[in-house]
């Protein structure tokens, strides 16, 4: 991978400063990652009101729990994404239980992760570089692996639900997701 990718993926961690109550660092953290998290929550929840509410919960949690972040174990953005995704999926599941989701049955299965609504402001050059690096890593996954990963990651489906949805044996789905994740992990190591 290129040197550009090295610089793009490794940006300095802001969370240790946030853990010490540095509001400036927290603002920077928000400006740097809120659009990624909001896109993720829109993808999971398909509803701007819910996505904004969960985004707010995510950043409040980041502020109160920043001291639990360990930069040796991962990046700021991965930590924030994990909080946002987990809360987003919880919200999605509680909506499913309430039966609010009208389009659940007919939801389109797609290997594309792209969300149609583009960010209107000028993208930060670093983020743009990072995204193209990420995109090329994901493009290397076969479509079948991307679809299985997307159903688990964005829709919170279990292995059995994915097998059922795609009409494939459970073993096939499990192997497919494991291979996809192994490839992504190797790719990530390559550009670290």
């Amino acid at each position: 991978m290129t040197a550009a990718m090295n610089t793009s993926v490794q940006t300095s961690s802001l969370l240790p400063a946030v853990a010490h109550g540095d509001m400036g660092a927290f603002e920077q953290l928000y400006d740097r990652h809120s659009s990624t998290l909001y896109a993720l929550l829109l993808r999971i929840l398909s509803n701007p009101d819910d996505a904004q509410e969960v985004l707010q919960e995510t950043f409040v949690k980041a502020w109160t729990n920043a001291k639990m972040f360990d930069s040796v174990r991962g990046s700021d953005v991965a930590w924030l994404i994990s909080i946002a995704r987990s809360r987003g999926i919880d919200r999605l599941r509680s909506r499913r239980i309430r039966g609010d989701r009208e389009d659940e049955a007919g939801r389109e299965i797609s290997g594309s992760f792209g969300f149609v609504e583009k960010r209107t402001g000028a993208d930060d050059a670093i983020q743009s570089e990072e995204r193209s690096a990420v995109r090329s890593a994901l493009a290397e996954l076969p479509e079948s692996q991307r679809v299985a990963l997307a159903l688990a990651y964005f829709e919170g489906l279990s292995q059995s639900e994915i097998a059922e949805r795609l009409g494939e044996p459970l073993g096939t789905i499990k192997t497919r997701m494991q291979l996809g994740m192994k490839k992504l992990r190797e790719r990530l190591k390559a550009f670290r």
Partner: protein
Amino acid sequence: MMSHDQYDAIAALDAIGAADADEASALHAHLASCPDCRRARDEYAEAASLLARDLDPVDPPRQLRDRIFKSIDRGNVVDARERFGISRWWMAAAVVFLALWGWRELSVRMMREKVNSRDADIRRLAGQNQLLTARNEKLSAEMASLASRDTRTIALTGQQVSPSASAKVFLEPQQRRAVVFFYNLPPNAADKSYQLWILRADQPKPQSAGIFDVTPSGAASISIENLPLATEIKGLAVTLEPKGGVEQPTNTNFFVAGST
């Protein structure tokens, strides 16, 4: 007891929230005592974040930013001068505290280590217990497959690369599940896995039904859920593949094979 490779495979799924509850709790109990697997789990979590980072960013409304910053308790923001003052006070207090209570601190620490070690033992045992429960459930399901009135038996025979190998498939068409027992397969190398393939009448490419390793005596068993309809299964075959399995067979050296 599961191997590190098996924990690694669960960690990959756990990072995208797709591990079964039993698998996930066994993994988390294991992580408490295994730094290598913990590192692997962290790396998978970082890799999973790529799925989100691939999305085109969307700016949230400006008002949301204001709302979030208002909701943060600004009282928690520590002024640098105040923090310095507090830390000096705390340092002095800590010295006095340590002088007076040093011996007690030491015993507390020792007790805490004991408690932590017992907690780790409890977590490990709880993980093992859950794993055994899961295995018990799996065995019960397998027994049900074997004992069902509708169960069909299919024999897979050794092929050119392993003529003495064989396998028996107990197929329960109603439940769309099967249990397969393998005998006399050559031991697989550490970097290889056996992979069972379903050859389908309605699809040109074989489908993976799972991966497995064999015991030193060449035995193994695997249960398959969510099988295709019995009429769609043309046959079954086993190949030796890179560790962790592959999407499609990389060779046609079948170790055992048979048709339905």
